[in-house]
C-alpha cells in the first residue's frame, strides 16, 4: 500500500498538472505552466522510488536515464518545422507504454488466478490495452504522414469501411473474452487488433486534418493512462491521464471548429467516396509566371501588402529573409501585415511559433478573422509557401477534402503573387484555382533563394 505522505505528494503533483494546463492556455503564463508540469512529474518520479518497495532499481534507473537523454536530445535538436510530428511520436510511445503496463498487469492477474481480480478490473485492463495500441500505431502513422515518409493524401482501399467495422467488432468480442477468461494471449491479440484499428483510423485522414487526429490520439493516450491508474491503484495516473483525456478531447473540438470541420467528417469523410480532386492532370494549364524583378516592381508601388506565410516558407528557412523584405517595404511607407491562418504551418499556432523565431513583431501577425476584410484594399498579396489556406475550393467545391475550411480572402486583392517551388499541390493534395486567376503571378523557385533575389531587387529600387 502506498504510504499517506506519498499519496499527499501525488496530490501535489496532480495540482501541478492542473495548474500546468491552466498556465498553458494563456500566453503570459504558458512557459511557467509547462515548467510547473515538469516539476510535478519530477516530484512524482522521486516519490515513487521512496514510497514503493521496488526491486531492479539499477536497471530501472538506467532505462530512465537512457530514455531521458534520448528524449531531451531529440526534442532539442529537432527543427521547429518538424515539431508536429515529434508531438505525434512522443504521444505514440506514451500510448505504447500504457498498453505494455496493462499487458504486464494482465500477466500478473492471470498468474494469481481468476479469484484475485474483479470483472471490472479486467474490463478496464482490456480498455487500456486496446486504446493504448490504437493510439500507438495511429500516432506512428501520423508521424509518417507529417514526415512525408508516406503520402499525405488520404489512403483508401476498397472495402476499408468493412475492414474497419470487422476490426471494431473483433476487438469488442476479444474484449469480452478477456473479461470472461483472463489470458495474456487474449490481451496480446486484443493489442494487435488495436494496432490494426489505429492504422485503419488514420490512413484515410487527409494531410491537412492530421493535427486534429494527433490531438484526438493524445486524448486517447490520456484515457489509457487514466485507466492504468485505476488498474495499478495510483491516483496520480488516474487524475493526470483523465485531465489529458478531457482537455485533449475539448482541444480537438476547438481545433476542428477553428478549421470549420467536424470530427466525424475528418475521420470518416474519406469513407463516403473520396474526392477525385487532386489528379495532377490539371497542372498543365497555363499560368502567368514572372521573375523576382517584376515582383519587386509590383511590391515597390504597393501601398498595402499582405503576406500569407505557409509551411513552405518555414521549410525553406526563408522567414528571416521575408522579415527583412517586410522591414524594407514598411520603411518605404507601405503597410504590411502577415495574415495567419489558424492552421498555417502544420498545426494550429505553428506559424506563430515559426515567425516568432524569426523575430517578426507580434503586432504584424494578424489572425484570419481580423484581416480577412482587409484583402479588398490590398494592392499585393504575397503568398509564400502556402496553398490550401487560400484555396477557393474550400468554398466552392463540396467534394474537396478541405471543403468547409475557412480560408483567407487572398483572391479579393488586386494582385496575388504566389512564391512556389513548383506546381505541386498543397498538403491537402488538391489543385488551387486561384493560381490560374488572371490577376495571379507565380514566382517559381526555392523560397529562400527567390526571397533573397526579391529582397535584393526591392532594395535596388
Amino acid at each position, binding site marked *: 500500500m502506498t504510504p499517506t505522505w506519498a499519496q499527499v505528494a501525488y496530490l501535489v*503533483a496532480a495540482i501541478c*498538472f*492542473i495548474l*500546468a*494546463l*491552466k498556465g*498553458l*492556455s494563456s*500566453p503570459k503564463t*504558458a*512557459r511557467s505552466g509547462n*515548467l510547473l*508540469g515538469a516539476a510535478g*512529474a519530477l516530484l*512524482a518520479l522521486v516519490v*515513487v522510488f521512496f514510497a514503493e518497495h*521496488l*526491486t*531492479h532499481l539499477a536497471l*530501472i534507473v538506467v*532505462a530512465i536515464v537512457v*530514455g*531521458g537523454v534520448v528524449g531531451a536530445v531529440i*526534442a532539442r535538436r529537432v527543427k*521547429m518545422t518538424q*515539431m*508536429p510530428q*515529434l*508531438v505525434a511520436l*512522443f504521444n505514440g*510511445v*506514451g500510448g505504447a*507504454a*500504457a498498453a*505494455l*503496463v496493462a499487458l*504486464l*498487469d494482465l500477466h500478473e492477474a492471470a498468474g494469481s488466478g481468476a479469484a484475485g481480480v474483479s470483472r471490472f478490473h479486467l474490463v478496464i485492463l482490456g480498455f487500456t490495452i486496446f486504446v493504448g495500441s490504437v493510439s500507438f500505431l495511429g500516432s506512428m502513422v501520423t508521424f509518417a504522414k507529417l514526415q512525408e515518409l508516406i503520402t499525405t493524401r488520404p489512403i483508401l482501399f476498397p472495402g476499408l469501411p468493412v475492414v474497419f467495422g470487422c476490426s471494431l467488432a473483433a476487438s469488442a468480442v476479444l474484449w469480452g473474452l478477456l473479461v470472461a477468461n483472463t489470458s495474456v494471449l487474449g490481451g496480446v491479440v486484443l493489442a494487435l487488433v488495436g494496432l490494426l484499428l489505429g492504422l485503419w483510423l488514420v490512413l484515410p485522414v487527409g494531410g491537412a486534418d492530421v493535427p486534429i487526429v494527433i*490531438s484526438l490520439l*493524445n486524448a486517447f493516450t*490520456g484515457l489509457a*493512462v487514466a485507466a492504468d491508474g485505476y488498474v495499478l491503484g*495510483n491516483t496520480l*495516473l*488516474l487524475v493526470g*491521464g*483523465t485531465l*489529458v*483525456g*478531457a482537455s485533449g478531447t*475539448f*482541444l480537438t473540438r*476547438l481545433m476542428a471548429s*477553428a478549421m470549420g470541420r467536424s470530427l466525424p467528417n475528418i475521420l470518416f469523410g474519406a469513407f463516403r467516396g473520396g474526392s477525385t480532386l487532386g489528379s495532377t492532370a490539371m497542372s498543365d494549364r497555363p499560368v502567368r509566371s514572372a521573375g523576382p524583378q517584376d515582383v519587386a516592381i509590383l511590391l515597390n508601388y504597393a501601398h498595402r501588402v499582405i503576406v500569407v506565410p505557409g509551411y513552405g516558407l518555414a521549410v525553406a528557412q526563408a522567414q528571416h529573409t521575408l522579415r527583412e523584405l517586410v*522591414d524594407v517595404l514598411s520603411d518605404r511607407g507601405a503597410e504590411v501585415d502577415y495574415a495567419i491562418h489558424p492552421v498555417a504551418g502544420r*498545426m494550429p*499556432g505553428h506559424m*506563430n*511559433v515559426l515567425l*516568432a523565431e524569426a523575430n517578426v513583431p507580434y503586432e504584424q501577425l494578424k489572425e484570419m478573422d481580423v484581416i480577412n476584410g482587409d484583402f479588398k484594399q490590398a494592392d499585393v498579396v504575397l503568398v509564400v509557401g502556402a496553398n490550401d489556406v487560400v484555396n477557393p475550393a474550400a468554398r466552392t467545391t463540396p467534394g474537396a477534402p478541405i471543403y468547409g475550411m475557412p480560408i483567407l480572402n487572398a483572391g479579393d486583392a488586386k494582385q496575388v503573387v504566389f512564391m512556389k517551388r513548383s506546381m505541386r499541390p498543397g498538403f491537402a493534395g488538391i489543385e488551387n484555382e486561384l493560381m490560374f486567376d488572371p490577376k495571379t503571378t507565380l514566382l517559381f523557385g526555392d523560397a529562400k533563394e527567390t526571397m533573397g533575389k526579391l529582397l535584393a531587387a526591392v532594395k535596388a529600387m
Partner: protein
Amino acid sequence: MSDAVVWLTFFVLSVFVGTEVISKVSSTLHTPLMSGANAIHGIILLGAILVAGTAHSTTVLAIGLVAVFLATLNVVGGFVVTDRMLEMFRGHRRRQATEPAHEPAQSPPEPPR
C-alpha cells in the same frame, strides 16, 4: 461507498477540471497546449516503474523496462519540446515590452534587424 465508485468520482471530477482549465485557450497556443498535455500523460512512467520494479520474471522485467524507456521518452521529450516552442513566444514578448523604453541600452545584444 465501494472502491470503484471512489475512483469513478476522481475520474468524473478530473474530466470537469480538465475541460474547465483550458476552456479559454487562444488558438495561438493550441499547439503548445497539445504538446504540454502530451507530456503530462507521460506520467505513465510511474506505472511502468511500478510494474518493472515488482517483476518476478525476466520477460516481465524486460518488457517493463521497455515501457519505462518509452514513458521517459514521452515525459522528458514532451516537456522539453513544449518549452522550446514557448521560448519563442517569451523572447518575443520581452523584446516588445522593453524595446520602446530602453532601446539604446538593449540594442547591443539585439540581433541585427
